[in-house]
């Protein structure tokens, strides 16, 4: 079977996106700290990309996204610590996130907007309670230690550089998959639901199926990113996945630009790299950043990605090419 020309286009733009991200350490240097930071950014890009599918494209709000990162991280950690090898554990982490995501998507049929926000908030809180209190399984507040990175063929991922490229290859795969999905019939259905649910239903979009799918796929991305996070840190604790973390992910997406594919890349990059440039300001940075997020919401609801597009149009007098809006 030959790939249609349009699919080649998505693979090409996926390569471009990921190349842009991977080039970061080549600029800032491969020092252990920068490598760690770059890996962290890539992991968060994967998670926010999932949130973008659920919220940005399908228009379904969720305040429980970090809980799925937690589910992925804990699944991988608990299983590998009990002697499973990485791949089956990682696959299972993805599968559990996908299924739980689908279940969380079910209420979206009956309720939306603020009610949905609260159902997902409740879910996130329950998962957090579970992580802190089921000590035998999760280690409680002490967390879980000694998570081993896997070997791929004969290549060990214990070196930070090798691990960075391992994570980046996941970014590549998930970016290509996301671009393909959003430009397919699925993406069109998502956007139809976001724009006008009743109209979408009238023209034959199966609301149940697509809403559940939007949640399931978004949660799958979060679960996988959580699994990678556990490998990066080699230790996990519940305080990495509280409800406020879901809020941060939401802000990363909104600052980056929801419903714009670049948004999921720009958001985590800005939110996580900027504090490095403003080091020494510590708390003040968060104050400034929350203030900037508020301004962006009020004045440029399409986020930095939208701002970039507008600038491009002003300068070159034509629309930015290769957009997946």
């Amino acid at each position, binding site marked *: 079977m030959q790939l249609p020309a349009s699919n080649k286009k998505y693979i090409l733009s996926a390569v471009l996106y990921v190349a842009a991200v991977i080039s970061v350490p080549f600029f800032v240097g491969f020092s252990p700290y920068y490598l760690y930071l770059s890996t962290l950014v890539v992991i968060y890009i994967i998670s926010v990309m999932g949130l973008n599918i659920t919220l940005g494209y399908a*228009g379904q709000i969720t305040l429980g996204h970090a809980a799925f990162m937690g589910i992925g991280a804990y699944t991988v950690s608990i299983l590998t610590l009990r002697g499973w090898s990485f791949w089956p554990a990682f696959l299972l982490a993805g599968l559990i996130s996908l299924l739980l995501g689908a279940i969380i998507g079910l*209420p979206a049929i009956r309720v939306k907007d*603020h009610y949905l926000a609260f159902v997902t908030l409740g879910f996130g809180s329950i998962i957090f309670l579970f992580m802190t209190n089921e000590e035998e399984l999760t280690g409680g507040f002490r967390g879980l230690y000694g998570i081993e990175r896997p070997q791929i063929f004969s290549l060990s991922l214990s070196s930070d550089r090798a691990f960075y490229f391992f994570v980046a290859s996941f970014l590549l795969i998930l970016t290509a998959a996301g671009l393909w999905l959003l430009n397919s019939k699925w993406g069109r259905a998502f956007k139809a639901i976001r724009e006008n649910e009743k109209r979408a239903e009238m023209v034959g979009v199966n609301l149940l199926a697509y809403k559940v799918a939007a949640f399931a796929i978004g949660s799958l991305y979060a679960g996988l990113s959580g699994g990678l996070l556990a490998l990066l840190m080699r230790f996990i604790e519940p305080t990495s996945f509280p409800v406020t973390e879901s809020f941060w992910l939401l802000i990363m997406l909104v600052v980056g630009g929801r419903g714009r594919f670049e948004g999921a890349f720009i958001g985590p990059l800005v939110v996580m790299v900027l504090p490095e440039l403003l080091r020494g300001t510590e708390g003040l940075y968060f104050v400034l950043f929350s203030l900037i997020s508020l301004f962006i919401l009020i004045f440029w609801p399409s986020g930095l990605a939208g701002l970039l597009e507008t600038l491009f149009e002003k300068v070159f007098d034509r629309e930015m090419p290769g957009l997946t809006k």
Partner: protein
Amino acid sequence: MFQLILSGLAIGAVYGLVAMGFSLLWQTSQTINFAQGDFLTVSAVLIVILVGSGLPFPLALLLVLGAVALVLGYIYKRSVIQPLIEKDPHSIIVATIALSFLLRNSVSTFWSTQTHRFPITLGEGTYRLGTVALSKHHLFTVLIAVALIGGLQLFIKKTKTGKAMRAVAQNREAAEILGIDIQLVTTIVFVINGLLVAFASILVAPTYMVSFSMGTTVAHKAFYSAIIGGFNQLHGALLGGFIVGIVESFTAAYVSTQYKELFVLILLIATILIKKQGILGTEEY
């Protein structure tokens, strides 16, 4: 047993107050205020700072109420909510979350990351009624909350402004056609919300202690209360507060303190899925 009911009612009354503010904002402007808890924190912190600098408590309280009404009521409504109200509901949700981070980080950066004692108490020790010991703090909390709730109800029922608030809540467009200044009414509601939350902060601060994160838990419980009771009805939000307070104090005593939140969360999700408007809530269009 009586102790449990009283402590449940006391904390429930606080949840109820915060939930009522939340419900008012929702009814008149479809705003879900995720910064509600940080409003509470900021009010308590300001009182600690003012009293610490030598002001008597009543004067400090008055100043804080004024500041809260101005900044977290008027300015918040004008600069953040008003521009976003016509856009999508998600923007308002995220904006209030951003504001919540702003307030929280401002408090921890410019004030302190430590826990501080609140300068006043609502009474220490207990009253004895036969064999039952009633905590003074809980008793006064309930009394003050009931007075505030009664006052608010009177205001809404008896005054012209209250009538306008009810009209806007029932039907925005119709209210506007009838010549009600919707922006003004909404602003008044934001001011009332700020005041309610500031009073709630005085009720919880003596037991919770004052820190940059003190409001978060209270606010989340208040949200849950509002939704369980029905947040498009004021008395629904209040009922929810008492339900959550009592469920919490009983599960903490008889089941487990670790999971005292779990029952409330299950109640929350079940409510939304069974009757999303909550126990006393009415159908929305």
